């Protein structure tokens, strides 16, 4: 076809541009679905519990990803500050993943268990009360808002359609028991979602307010699990080299 024709016909130009870009994209992305080693084989990674899942939704709602990445790259300086580099396997149940690209604040991929629940709560209410030079905004409403978990089952069902192994039948539950153990499998059972969510809050009372499940409870439970699922001490420090 003559350039002339392509350049003068907006419709054809748009279609051909899209074709060219998708061909490029496909060539780069499609092989990753087939290459066996993209997602590392590693123990411990599990889907989020209902409470953590709602916390993740709040993380996204509040736009925390605009200032925080969750992706430790394999560089010396990052390993020294944040710990082991992130594995693809660690975000295999994240839809969408929260790798991010902007670091106004520190990376959060391994912030789980680094601080106490009390610190996380106080830091979200008023970051400057703990870190005077911080530029992070205050999120005082999180501890005032009751957590809305009326649609938690629907959220889990939606993720299940993308391949996250939440169970909705006895057979699926049994499969999760084999794969993750009974304790985790119980948390992943969709019909029990509300019960599990309240149970986890009552057990840990993340925000120190015993009488209510707040958005703070959910968000802190999510932050406290980040990067803690894999026990890297079980592996040689070059275990994950062979996947690249």
């Amino acid at each position: 076809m003559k350039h002339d024709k392509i350049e003068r016909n907006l419709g054809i130009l748009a279609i051909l541009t899209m074709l060219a870009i998708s061909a490029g994209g496909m060539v780069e992305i499609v092989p990753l679905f087939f290459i066996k080693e993209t997602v590392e084989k590693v123990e411990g990674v599990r889907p989020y519990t209902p409470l953590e899942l709602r916390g993740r939704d709040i993380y996204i709602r509040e736009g925390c990803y605009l200032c925080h990445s969750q992706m430790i790259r394999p560089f010396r300086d990052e390993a020294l500050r944040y710990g082991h580099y992130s594995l693809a396997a660690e975000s295999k149940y994240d839809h969408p993943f929260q790798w991010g690209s902007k670091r106004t604040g520190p990376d959060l991929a391994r912030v789980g268990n680094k601080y106490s629940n009390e610190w996380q709560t106080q830091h979200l209410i008023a970051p400057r009360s703990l870190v005077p030079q911080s530029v992070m905004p205050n999120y005082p409403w999180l501890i005032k808002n009751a957590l809305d978990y009326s649609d938690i089952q629907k959220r889990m069902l939606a993720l299940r359609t993308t391949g996250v192994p939440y169970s909705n039948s006895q057979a699926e539950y049994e499969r999760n028991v084999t794969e993750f153990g009974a304790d985790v499998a119980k948390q992943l059972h969709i019909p029990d979602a509300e019960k599990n969510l309240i149970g986890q809050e009552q057990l840990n009372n993340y925000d120190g307010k015993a009488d209510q499940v707040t958005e703070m409870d959910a968000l802190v439970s999510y932050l406290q699990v980040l990067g803690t699922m894999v026990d890297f001490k079980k592996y040689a420090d070059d275990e994950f080299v062979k996947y690249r």
Partner: protein
Amino acid sequence: MSQDNNTNTTNTTGHVWDNDLQELDNPLPRWWIWGFYITFVFTIVYWLFYPAWPIGDNYTKGVPGLNSITYTATQPNGEQVEKTTHWNMRSKFMVEMNELQEAQKKWFDKVAAMPFEDVQKDAELMQFVNSVGKTMFTDNCAPCHQQGAQGKIGFSPNLADDHWQYGGTYQNIEETIVAGRNGYMPPFKEVLQDEQITQLANYVLEMSGEPHDAEASKAGAALFRSETAACYYCHGENAQGKIQMGSANLTDKIWLWADIPGSKTDAAKLAEVKRVITGGLNRGVMPAWSGRLSPAQIKLLTVYVHDSLGGGK
């Protein structure tokens, strides 16, 4: 002018707008075209050196031996193995870490081999402890204990003074950092009457030399050692605290949970102490660091807290 262009130039697209605006149609400069071809050559060379083409469930890893990386890996049991792989980000990272360990090995080995007491006598070594310790403290500890380690009332203890709830020897401090701490005091709101709590609070204030009601304090002193309140069980007969459970020394002027220095009136001071006794304490958690820091790093940090921040015993 436009007339001239029209007649002299053959390389136009033939479009004319507004009678005189034309679109030139010259070939791309030669240097540009060559630059373009060179990128093709570069790509092929790149394929030889780096992982590139997906094939089925695998991918090419460059010509074997052309661009390989050798690094030292550490097994979970501490054994070291030398390995060679094709170039990739993760093996390159291993080399970076090897180089760092190599550069710091001399110092870390020295710290690890020495008894705690000798480290601070070695001035050169202490320079290393100070610089590495400061970075580790800023990344991990300062968000709670604050940048100058002065702590924050109601939140975390001062690490720069010579008062230690859990003991200030090297061993005590190392144990604190490795396993974390979580002092627990039960809430007394259901066990004691409000009046009894007031009496106890007055006694606590008296022990620290704060304004108090002498009569109430006397009753409080008795209660403190009674089986009803049983404060003595954790805080000790002399109320000086026990380092095994981190129960506070109630006879000094150092406050961690009751904000006495920040209370302006006597009534406010009393209310603060009552708040602590009524509600109990359990949210002040010092996290465990054994999962995040290596034993060598923890030992170094222990020396940093004990000697560089000062106040160690």
